[in-house]
């Protein structure tokens, strides 16, 4: 049985930057060990929402409202410690960003900056990350080769591996397959389904088919508003809102 504890809880989250509304009273729950998909067209606020979760949203004149509990802590409050938050909530970007160093050094970067020097600990973390991202078999013999030599799909899995090497509780993904070919995309989706056994995943994508394929529950954002949220199978078969129906049917977006 899966324990359905809520790990991320948004209570009327609103966000304005430079007087422009970005998020408007978002209310949703994300549960432990699920893949939660957030879909919506460009400018719908889905990435901004994701960036609020690990406290990396940056803009001028930001006005926040409501509360966003991540692992029990309100990350919108003043006294949140972003560094310790990001060790528990990691993130992978749309384009793979490998650092100009070896595969191994990429994997242990997050641990090194915590001051961990123990070779065995680093090695164990690197292996765990690679296995989680289903990349171990492909690179196990060349961990000390430059990471930039990997293919695009491998680089993105390395980014996931790098995030997982830190054993975060939550993994945030911002359109992780937008620049990848279908086979690489498939591999990453497989990795995500494995990962949710021990982790909670928030997946932002404007690829509705991907959300339908991999997410357990999902939300549809449109112009900063949460239009609909629920079980993915239900949202994609009997959407409650006309806008959701139009979006997943491809009538706009």
């Amino acid at each position, binding site marked *: 049985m899966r324990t359905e504890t809520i790990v991320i809880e948004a209570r009327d989250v609103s966000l304005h930057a430079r007087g422009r509304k970005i998020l408007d009273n978002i209310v949703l729950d994300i549960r432990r060990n699920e893949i939660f998909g957030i879909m919506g067209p460009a400018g719908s606020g889905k990435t901004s929402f994701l960036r609020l979760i690990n406290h990396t949203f940056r803009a001028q004149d930001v006005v926040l409202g409501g509360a966003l509990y991540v692992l029990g802590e309100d990350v919108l409050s003043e006294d949140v410690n972003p560094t310790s938050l990001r060790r528990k909530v990691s993130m992978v*970007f749309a384009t793979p960003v490998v650092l100009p160093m070896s595969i191994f050094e990429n994997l242990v970067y997050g641990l090194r900056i915590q001051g961990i020097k123990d070779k065995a600990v680093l090695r164990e973390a690197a292996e765990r990350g690679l296995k989680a991202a289903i990349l171990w078999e492909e690179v196990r013999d060349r961990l000390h080769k430059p990471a930039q030599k990997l293919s695009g799909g491998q680089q993105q899995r390395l980014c996931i591996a790098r995030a997982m090497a830190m054993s975060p509780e939550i993994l945030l993904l911002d359109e992780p397959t937008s620049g990848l070919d279908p086979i690489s995309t498939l591999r990453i989706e497989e990795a995500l389904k494995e990962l949710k056994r021990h982790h909670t995943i928030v997946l932002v994508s404007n690829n509705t088919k991907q959300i339908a394929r991999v997410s357990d529950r999902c939300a549809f954002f449109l112009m900063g508003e949460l239009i609909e949220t629920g079980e993915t199978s239900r949202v994609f078969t009997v959407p409650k809102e006309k806008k959701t129906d139009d979006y997943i049917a491809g009538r706009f977006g």
Partner: protein
Amino acid sequence: MTPRRAEHIALGLMVSGAFLALAILFFIIAVIMIKGLPHISARFLLDNPMDMGRAGGIFSTIVSTIYLLVVSLVIAIPLGVGTAIYLTEYTEEGKITKIVRFGTECLAGVPSIILGLFGFILFVIKLGFGWSVLSGGISLAIMILPVIIRTSEEAIKSVPQAFRDVNEVLGGSKWQGVTRLVLPNAAPGILTGVILSVGRGIGETAVVIFTLGTSLRTPFSIFDSGRSMAVHFYILAREGISMSNAYATAAVLVFSILIINVISYYLMHKFVEGRR
């Protein structure tokens, strides 16, 4: 005149201008080498000057030059790179960055003779450092600071923003991002700036003559006076002490600058290649 004809004339003028510039460079180098090279020997490089430079070598001036450059770099690199890090990583583009940038541009525009006089009044007289490697080093550091700031800034800006984002989402502080990702990746560019400024410093006379002094003794302490190669050449030629030794000194000087430029050109290329 037809457009086609105008095109030909313009092109002809531009090409001859470019070749003229190149010819002047070769002429200068050739004159100095022809007049200077015959007097250069191992003894010339390794002996100290005698009889005010009429006889002997230039060993003490080589030591003074290197000593002076090292001291100025030790001061200018941390200050310059630090300023560049502050401007690019720690401030939003705004009033403060504009003021600092404008200030460094102005500093770059100050005539070196003025800097020399300033160094003389402040370091040599007021602070009592006397004519010394220290006074000269600080004054020269002020002169090369704008070059180091500007090139470091460009080098730091060329490091992809995404590296900083990765550092951030993996729980790194800004300073960790700077030391572990930004500086290592900007290092070749920063080094190029440093070498460029060495090239400027090595040939500088106005600043140095006022602050390092003109002593022919080999400086040991940072408070010792000395005479750089450029100043030695200036004095030998200006006071007609020994034209052959002056040219030989100039040849060594030009040779050093040439080598430095070639190295910096090579590094810059490597840097650009590495970024691709």
